[in-house]
């Protein structure tokens, strides 16, 4: 993500429609401590350590690495506005399970954002496992990537969107 303070564009699903919107969130890497400012995504570890401070600042969020256990964030849900899931490489598919678990088992209803190596050809699946915002890799044009969300008009299996497999849906 970009330097703190500069706006950049992300794709966000607004009322079911993917749109390119300006965005203020920035990511705090492991190591440097959080200065208490808003629109920061903290490492899960930092967020857990500073949990008592989180509630006093809004909005603030956290990010999950591919090997973070999403269940550990449950206690913070009431004090955060956004969860980011990092994709160090687009071929690393762990973040899809992280998202699906956050949306189903752990009941995260706030914004869920795919971060880092996020490219057009993975957006359709990311949306299906419950991501509703997407910070594309900075060298890619979010506007051009919007068509990815209509790659398929339907799906066989259930996931988060839709939750039911084709054979359980009405009208089938």
């Amino acid at each position, binding site marked *: 993500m970009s330097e703190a303070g500069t706006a950049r564009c992300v794709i966000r699903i607004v009322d079911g429609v993917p749109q390119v919107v300006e965005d203020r969130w920035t990511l705090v890497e492991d190591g440097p401590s959080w200065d208490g400012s808003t629109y920061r995504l903290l490492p899960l570890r930092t967020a857990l350590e500073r949990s008592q401070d989180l509630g006093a600042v809004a909005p603030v969020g956290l990010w999950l690495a591919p090997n973070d256990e999403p269940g550990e964030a449950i206690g913070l849900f009431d004090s955060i506005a956004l969860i980011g899931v990092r994709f160090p490489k*687009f*071929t*690393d*598919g*762990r973040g*899809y*399970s*992280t998202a*699906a678990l956050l949306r189903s*088992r752990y009941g995260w209803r706030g914004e869920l954002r795919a971060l880092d190596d996020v*490219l057009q*050809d*993975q957006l*359709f*699946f*990311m949306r*299906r*496992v419950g991501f509703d915002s997407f910070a594309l890799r900075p060298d890619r044009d979010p506007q051009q990537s919007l068509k990815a969300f209509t*790659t*398929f*008009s*339907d*799906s*066989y*299996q*259930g*996931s988060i969107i839709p*939750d*039911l*497999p*084709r*054979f*359980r849906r009405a009208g*089938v």
Partner: protein
Amino acid sequence: MYQYTPFDQRMLDERVEEFRDQIARWQRSELTDDELRPLRLRNGLYIQRHAPMLRIAIPYGLLSARQMRMLAHIARTWDRGYGHFTTRQNIQLNWPRVEDAPDILEALASVQMHAIQTSGNSVRNITTDPLAGVAADEQVDPRPYCELLRQWSSFHPEFSYLPRKFKIALNGAQGVDRAATAMHDIGLYLRRDEAGQVVVDVLAGGGMGRTPVVGTVIRKDLPWRHMLSYCEAILRVYNRYGRRDNIWKARIKILLRALGAEAFAREVDEEFAYLESGPATATDAELTRIAEGFAPPPYEVLAREAAPLTEALATQPGFARWHQRNVLVHRVAGYAAVTLSLKRSSVAPGDLSAELMDAVAALADRYSFGELRVTHEQNLVLADVAQHDLPQLWTQLRQLGLASPNIGLLTDIVCCPGGDFCSLANAKSLPIAQSIQDRFDDVDYVHDLGDLTLNISGCINSCGHHHVGNIGILGVDKQGAEFYQITLGGDVGPDPARTHVGNVIGPSFSAEQVPGVIGSILDTYVANRSDGERFIHTLTPLGIAPFKSAAYADGGAGTGAAEALEHV
């Protein structure tokens, strides 16, 4: 067979359009080679030694005559007029152009075929028994369950970027396994419980490759409705915890070993507890809908013994020999399943020309209700032939060169394309197959040897399944030169306990030595066997020591056929 609904067709058409756009963006340099790679692999497209290779899915090995004609058309139009059937019941084209791939996929889609997930780190083509629905030893027809899984795994959003490839096989036969189920990432054994309900024993963690492992049954008696949810639990555990730092340690078998089978099964069961009876639970209505596509063809009521068959068996020794090896018992009286041998001299195992594809499609229309099967051993099957047609069919197959009476014998060699085509290979495999075919061209000798599997892989990826060949041959690279490692004792049994990975006998051999070494091994078998004893049954109690001594005596220049015949 299962016919696509408008829904299925739309999903397929949309996939073709997606891939066409991806290729176009790659051509405009909007996608890098590295970014395209996983996208093209999940559409079956490899970049190979001479040209790209396109691996086309044949779901659970089932092909209609119309689909076979389309494969012939594609091979003629966009390739060099032939295709190669693989050990995973797929077909590969060795010479397509990348730019043509979208058009090829569109042509395939017009006959309900595709190359979806035939490669890449996703759930691959589902494989099963080529005799599904016709085998006398079958308890549950696996095909509807295969199709349920095919649909569930197609474009799965959560499991499309797994640590490594993922292969699922199903077996519904009793006392036999024609799909090497235990050697898969997930193996599903379908059977009926005492109440007549279909239940599944679920195996995980099998696989070939650098670390061959026979899988472990981690769940028994799973009601079939939970099959998809249980697979989902396994895949979620694998997707989250499978290694991604080392391609050679990324398969689920390594995770299962690292955790231990019991701990792995506990992880899966914990996950399954959340998913059990959830939305992925299959319904009777859906299974019934799919199963209608696999309803038996309109069989005639035929006598158990057909007069033309009895006569041909009595009067034509060539026919009798072919019947003995290539014709299989059918569950319906008066019918038979016929294997068309794609293992004949001077043709690579599993290869078929476009002309022969058309000819075989015509035979399927005439003799077998317009359907064909592809076997795990790279042959074709006409599964529903009336026994009274067998003599005529044999005559036609002989004219086509597809009647080699060698199914299950030494010359029914299973072989990957190897270094002649595949850029992964360390060594050529096809010339080795050829040299063995040439050396052991005495039909009487080969028949006398009896049931024996010989598998050749050009590299440790093990596409030729050498680990489970009674005799396995693996191409290896030694300082830039091609050598061949021999394993003995591999075997696919009816269950995991009776499935074995072969043992390496020692240092590898040069290509020239291989036929002689095989000859020495066979001599040792013939000298030690009891009457009618199979190669593997002689070898197992003896161990590999005497075979090894023979193989390394005289620098591996055993005499093979000539000497062995004296023992007959």
